[in-house]
């Protein structure tokens, strides 16, 4: 728990589309220098939340409620020109697909320099020198040569490094990484996550890691927010969440994941699975996880469960499991 005001504070965020409400009353906070992971499957609303923070939501989307405070300012109230200065300079973002995020007809040096000239007003020459330094910082081998390469000459991992170089060019306070390694191979994924963590420490950034991979969360995040169908299901310190998940969805995800339990083999029995799909959350008046939940009570179907802080910094939106948790706490006299 942080005592000082957090760097980023998202609260009660609700994003509406004409076709539905993919993010409902969602919130989380990020302290300076912290790594917070937002975990969810596709359709959970985690990427939309990131776009909302950057104020880059598609036109048809509307922020119906909530606030986003960053370094003491209300981002939702900022006029667009001021928001443009925040973007890239104070909050930067990298995406899953490094292939399409880079302009294919410009050299990588030009693209990094562009950011520097726009935000820092550097001369062409200074921007180029700085681009080479940045490529070196993100551990691109032979940066003097690479700076003049076009994106198609680079591997996927290399391109993601270039994207990271552009993102950290102006030393942002917060870097949002939306599935930064999903398109990459395992060994390259480890390199990129390692790099992000180093940069976080060296540049004093906070990092929001949006991912579907609980393994990544355990290895790299300080705190985890589990998102399901646009709502916060659970939030805790990474280690605690993985050791003792409270929400049935988090428990299901951990059990269904073959990677975290190496003793599993198909001859020994089936994997635990979460039945159904996230689509079943649509139009649920109660808890969105009810149709897939093994513990659901009739009361779960009536209204969405409130998010309760069962212990400091430990939030769970499940009255069924938290009832047990509270009883435990009483029993051991906590």
């Amino acid at each position, binding site marked *: 728990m942080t005592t000082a005001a957090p760097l980023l504070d998202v609260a009660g965020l609700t994003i509406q589309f004409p076709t539905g409400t993919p993010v409902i009353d969602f919130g989380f906070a990020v302290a300076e220098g912290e790594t917070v992971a937002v975990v969810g499957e596709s359709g959970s609303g985690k990427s939309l939340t990131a776009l909302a923070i950057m104020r880059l939501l598609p036109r048809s989307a509307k922020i119906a409620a909530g606030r986003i405070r960053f370094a003491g300012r209300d981002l939702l109230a900022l006029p667009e020109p001021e928001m443009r200065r925040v973007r890239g300079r104070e909050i930067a973002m990298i995406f899953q697909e490094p292939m399409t995020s880079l302009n294919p007809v410009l050299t990588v040096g030009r693209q990094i320099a562009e950011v520097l000239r726009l935000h820092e007003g550097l001369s062409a020459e200074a921007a180029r020198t700085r681009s080479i330094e940045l490529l070196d910082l993100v551990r691109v081998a032979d940066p003097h040569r690479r700076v003049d390469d076009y994106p198609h000459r680079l591997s996927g991992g290399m391109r993601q490094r270039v994207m990271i170089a552009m993102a950290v060019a102006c030393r942002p306070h917060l870097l949002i990484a939306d599935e930064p390694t999903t398109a990459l191979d395992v060994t390259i994924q480890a390199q990129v996550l390692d790099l992000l963590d180093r940069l976080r420490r060296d540049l004093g950034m906070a990092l929001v890691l949006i991912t579907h991979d609980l393994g990544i969360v355990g290895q790299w995040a300080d705190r985890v927010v589990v998102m399901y169908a646009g709502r916060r299901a659970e939030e805790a310190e990474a280690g605690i969440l993985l050791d003792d998940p409270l929400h049935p969805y988090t428990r299901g995800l951990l059990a269904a994941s073959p*990677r975290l339990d190496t003793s599993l*083999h198909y001859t020994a029995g089936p994997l635990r699975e979460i039945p159904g799909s996230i689509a079943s959350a649509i139009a649920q008046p109660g808890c969105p996880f009810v149709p897939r939940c093994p513990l659901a009570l009739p009361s779960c179907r009536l209204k969405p469960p409130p998010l309760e802080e069962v212990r400091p910094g430990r939030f769970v939106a499940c009255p069924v499991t938290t009832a047990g948790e509270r009883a435990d706490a009483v029993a051991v006299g906590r």
Partner: protein
Amino acid sequence: MPLLSVADLHTHFPTPQGTLRAVDGVSLTVAKGESVGLVGESGCGKSTLGKTVLRLVPPTSGEIVFAGEDIARLPAESLKPYRRRAQMIFQDPFGSLNPRHTIESILTAPLYVHGIGDRAERQKRVAAIIERVGLPLSALSRYPHEFSGGQRQRIGIARALILGPDLVICDEPVSALDLSIQAQILNLLVEMKREFNLSYLFISHDLSVIRYFADRVLVMYLGRIVESGTGADLWARPLHPYTRALIQAIPDPSRRRQAAPLGGDIASPQDLPRGCRFHPRCPIATAVCAERDPALETHAPGHQTACHHAGQLTRPPEA
């Protein structure tokens, strides 16, 4: 005799930048009822290997012996009986189903093409398989875009199984799916294997999925098999430094903020390194590795690797 036996298979493609050696001398066997895992990173040739075994890509040289017959040399017109016995499940549940056809016509067409049953019989089979993969009969009259990724993958499985094959090549069947759906599909594949006594060649980049699913594991790097053994052997005592790196690269909470196990990028298959293909990235490479290409050799019963220094790598990766 194994069901499938591939020997010294090469698949090369001519490109403007030179010959692309996607598969470069691979030998493997799949026994009846066995589940063989093939793991490797993108560009290592695992997908091309799978497609070559099914003759969806023409082999450059080598043998593909299936049930005693060399498929590699059959003319394209004579492949139809083989197609009935060897099938594929694809990675992309969106691209692998024709968006213009209903599920019913997607599943009926293979039976029709192979002249199986009459109209009523075909309908019966289609209904049986769609229910078996966990979809309601009402799915038949719908189009692929009306289904979620996991449901489409079920349809892809139904299509692969409708002809009653012996061998199914699964090309990254769960990597496009959400974690909560992956387990459903893996469990379904296991049930299908038991029920129809299938043999699988299971291709994935994800060692943990392979670990769960395979009886025997092959590790592929730049067109070659670099290590092969039972899952348990491989996990406990990886002999090849690449296998070791793959295992360590799996994100694991017990290794908080640990440095990446392997630097560098995978080399281009158009421009292969001299000597051992892995040596530019290898943490234990020596002079000999840049000179000589190591052969796949047996180091323990059922455990082979292609590494000059395999013996020096006895430390388990978790230590």
